[in-house]
């Protein structure tokens, strides 16, 4: 083979797995990808999406050049040079600064399209402008993170590879058959040694199908299931009260709450889980070293944080923490890298006023309310808010006030189509990056395998170029250190602590192979707060206890929108290799719910609520709970139109804003004649 080389890449998708990839390149063309056996978590394998990456890189719809549209939304696109595009944008930024006396009229909405460290360059580029408008918050998992902090003062750092050593495994509202396929190696290792697998979910997912035991539960009632399980164990004398009294704050209050307020038959009614099923769960926690993996879905409710607090109470009160395999698994954002792109020093005049923060979960509505100055320039990167946000209608209102919309993307997606400029983004095969996972503990350096596709550029290159254009026009306007290269930034992330935890002297050792972080030394004698003063101060229930989920009298059906197999949110929807028949054109319904509305398979229906209306085709699913309908994310007629004003109970501590209660959506469905 001529000019064949193998390059190390790391998949940067917003996914548990952050796979290590060996890219086969021939004559500067990516011809094949495979997993890297030196990566101890992904172990030489990729997922289906990973194996489709050659199709992704050379997809015929990939954007090749910067383009400009006039008028906005007309589809009248014109190719322009990078210099022209960035020059125009730079002039606009400077003009807005002169008009309003700061860069607060400029802002970005950027999220998880590429979660590599260097993709924080967009944030850095704006930081260089001085005070500006930032979308902040955590769309995904902040409520659960806060919950664990209220209980434990920190989110436990668990090694998912250790799940192999558990004696029992509870997958609670998590669907690794769709979202974390590599974890099955470790789950199955435990099962081969006799561990029972119990799955709890409102949906009969492929993961539920794997379970030796499956408990189907009514959405949002998981906290009650955990309370009932604890009550059974307490009454059977299976909780070690001597130990508990020493290590748990608020045990007496919690105990009397359990004894007086939790009633098993009532709990069974609320959760829909028969008593016998609750007892199965109790039996698993009775035997020690039980692993509990809490998914992100169950904290996307108005009571989501509380739910996680109670599940964690079950895990800890049964003594399931501190051991190697057992305990709670949620997420492992190590926070170990300094992320200098967001911290570089700025001149004092840029530090005089603060950044303006907008909640990313309610971005469009909050921005519409901003004055002095209003937002005028919006930069979108790594994100498609027109399919993924709440309050999509508000976005269309927002467009009217914006004088410039710039989108950086690989494809002409829904938000790009509404922009003035679209800048072609490089894939991760085309530049350096530094990647860590929010799940496993392996760190890798992503290296350029192929030259950039036509004129595509990474977020960092764009930041550097735009900064130069700004400073060329007005010296010193931006303080972003544009001279620093990707490798400079990577090097800067390797503090002595990081190097020590990786057991290396020089970060360049990572160019040869990914490495695993040595876990931080943990105090094992810390206390668990069943009663949290901090929660009370945050206007939340102080006690970890079940709070009922919301319901909506006007719309009887709860809409759930879980992750699909072939996509990461809005990404990959155009790959033919990943066409497994999943579609955003259907709504799944229980046959009873369909019958009650005179609906049959394949009927065209309208799903609607106060937020809007979407058209879908009915697909009957006998495993769906009554009162629950299912749709997938993305598409031309995005289901998120029906999402409005959803806030989880927690999230401020770790995300700066409450999490999004994406599963507290109620709708009605009717035939579309």
């Amino acid at each position: 083979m001529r000019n064949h080389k193998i390059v190390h890449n790391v998949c940067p998708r917003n996914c548990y797995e952050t796979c290590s990839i060996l890219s086969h390149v021939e004559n500067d063309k990516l011809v094949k990808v495979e997993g890297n056996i030196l990566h101890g978590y992904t172990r030489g394998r990729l997922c289906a999406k990973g194996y489709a990456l050659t199709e992704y890189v050379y997809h015929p719809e990939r954007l090749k050049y910067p383009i400009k549209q006039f008028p906005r939304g007309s589809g009248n696109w014109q190719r322009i040079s990078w210099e022209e595009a960035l020059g125009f944008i730079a002039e606009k930024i400077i003009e807005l600064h002169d008009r309003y006396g700061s860069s607060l009229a400029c802002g970005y909405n950027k999220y998880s399209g590429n979660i590599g460290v260097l993709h924080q360059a967009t944030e850095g580029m704006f930081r260089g402008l001085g005070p500006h408008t930032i979308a902040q918050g955590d769309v995904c998992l902040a409520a659960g993170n806060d919950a664990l902090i209220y209980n434990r003062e920190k989110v436990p750092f668990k090694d998912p590879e250790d799940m192999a050593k558990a004696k029992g495994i509870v997958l609670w509202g998590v669907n690794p058959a769709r979202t974390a396929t590599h974890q099955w190696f470790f789950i199955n290792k435990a099962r081969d040694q006799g561990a029972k697998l119990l799955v709890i979910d409102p949906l009969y997912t492929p993961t539920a199908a794997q379970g030796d035991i499956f408990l189907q539960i009514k959405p949002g009632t998981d906290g009650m299931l955990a309370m009932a399980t604890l009550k059974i164990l307490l009454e059977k004398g299976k909780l070690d009260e001597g130990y508990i009294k020493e290590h748990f704050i608020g045990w007496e209050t919690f105990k009397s709450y359990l004894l007086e307020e939790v009633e098993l038959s009532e709990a069974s009614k609320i959760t829909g889980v028969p008593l016998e099923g609750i007892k199965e769960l109790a039996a698993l926690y009775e035997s020690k070293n039980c692993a509990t993996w809490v998914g992100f879905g169950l904290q996307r409710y108005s009571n989501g944080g509380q739910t996680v607090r109670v599940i964690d109470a079950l895990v800890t009160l049964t003594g399931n923490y501190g051991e190697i395999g057992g305990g709670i698994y949620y997420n492992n954002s190590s926070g170990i890298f300094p992320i200098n792109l967001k911290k570089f020093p700025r001149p004092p005049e840029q530090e005089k006023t603060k950044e303006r923060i907008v909640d990313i979960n309610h971005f469009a509505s909050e921005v519409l309310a901003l004055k002095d100055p209003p937002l005028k320039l919006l930069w979108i990167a790594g994100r498609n808010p027109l399919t993924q946000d709440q309050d999509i209608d508000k976005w269309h209102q927002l467009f009217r006030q914006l004088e410039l919309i710039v989108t950086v993307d690989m494809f002409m997606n829904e938000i790009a189509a509404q922009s003035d400029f679209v800048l072609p983004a490089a894939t991760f095969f085309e530049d350096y990056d530094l990647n860590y996972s929010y799940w496993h503990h392996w760190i890798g350096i992503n290296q350029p395998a192929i030259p950039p596709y036509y004129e595509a550029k990474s977020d960092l290159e764009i930041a550097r170029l735009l900064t130069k254009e700004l400073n060329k026009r007005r010296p010193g306007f931006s303080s972003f250190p544009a001279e620093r290269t990707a490798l400079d930034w990577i090097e800067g992330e390797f503090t002595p602590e990081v190097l020590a935890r990786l057991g290396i002297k020089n970060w360049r050792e990572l160019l040869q192979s990914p490495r695993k972080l040595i876990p931080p030394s943990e105090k094992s004698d810390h206390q668990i707060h069943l009663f949290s003063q901090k929660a009370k101060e945050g206007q939340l229930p102080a006690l970890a206890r079940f709070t009922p989920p919301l319901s909506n009298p006007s719309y009887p059906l709860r809409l759930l929108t879980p992750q699909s197999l072939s996509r990461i949110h809005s990404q990959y929807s155009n790959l033919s290799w990943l066409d497994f028949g999943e579609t955003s054109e259907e709504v799944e319904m229980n046959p009873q719910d369909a019958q009650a509305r005179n609906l049959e398979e394949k009927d065209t229906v309208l799903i609607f609520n106060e937020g809007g209306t979407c058209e879908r085709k009915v697909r009957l699913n006998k495993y769906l709970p009554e009162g629950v309908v299912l749709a997938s994310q993305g598409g031309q007629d995005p289901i998120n139109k029906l999402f409005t004003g959803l806030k989880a109970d927690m999230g401020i501590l770790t995300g700066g804003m409450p999490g999004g209660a994406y599963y507290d959506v109620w709708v009605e469905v009717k035939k579309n004649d």
Partner: protein
Amino acid sequence: MTKISTKGFLFNVERCIGCHACEVACKNENKTAPGVQWRRVTEGENGTYHSISCNHCSSPECFRVCPENAYIKRRDGIVLIDSNRCAGCNTCVQACPYHAPQFDLHQNRTTKCNYCIDRQREGLPPACVVACPSGALVNIDLKHLPLESTVPTVPGFPDIRITKPSIRFFPQKGKKRYWLKEEKSESTKNTDL
């Protein structure tokens, strides 16, 4: 010279999570045309999945029916099609119970799983097997398989009597399911297979 063997697959329905990694890994390895899927993952009953490719049968119908004699059955059990000899008549496509031969519209000829023959030469397992995260799909030599612990077929798998496919399965066990208890109906627990 290939050794006499019976190369094939061992599949564990209970471990297959339907993740399609095997299917896409095959495309990544063999660069099959759009729509041509040498390995396919299909949905079965009760949340189960099957992953099916060519089974390199002992009595390959494809081989028997092909008017161009495009098929060969090797001593190691692998069944290959020489697509250059294929006239595109689709006889094998219809004859194979597992939809293994796939007609490539663009090239007007049929192709199918070749058991990753190039990888075999390098001593590497098939790409689909490497990709499987759950251990559900394994490549084996049926000559060395302890037949007692495995079964010849599972519910939902096409009829094996015509071609004697080189695939074996792990038997399925029962599982406990606690379906949602609705206020009206009292039916709850059941065990399915």
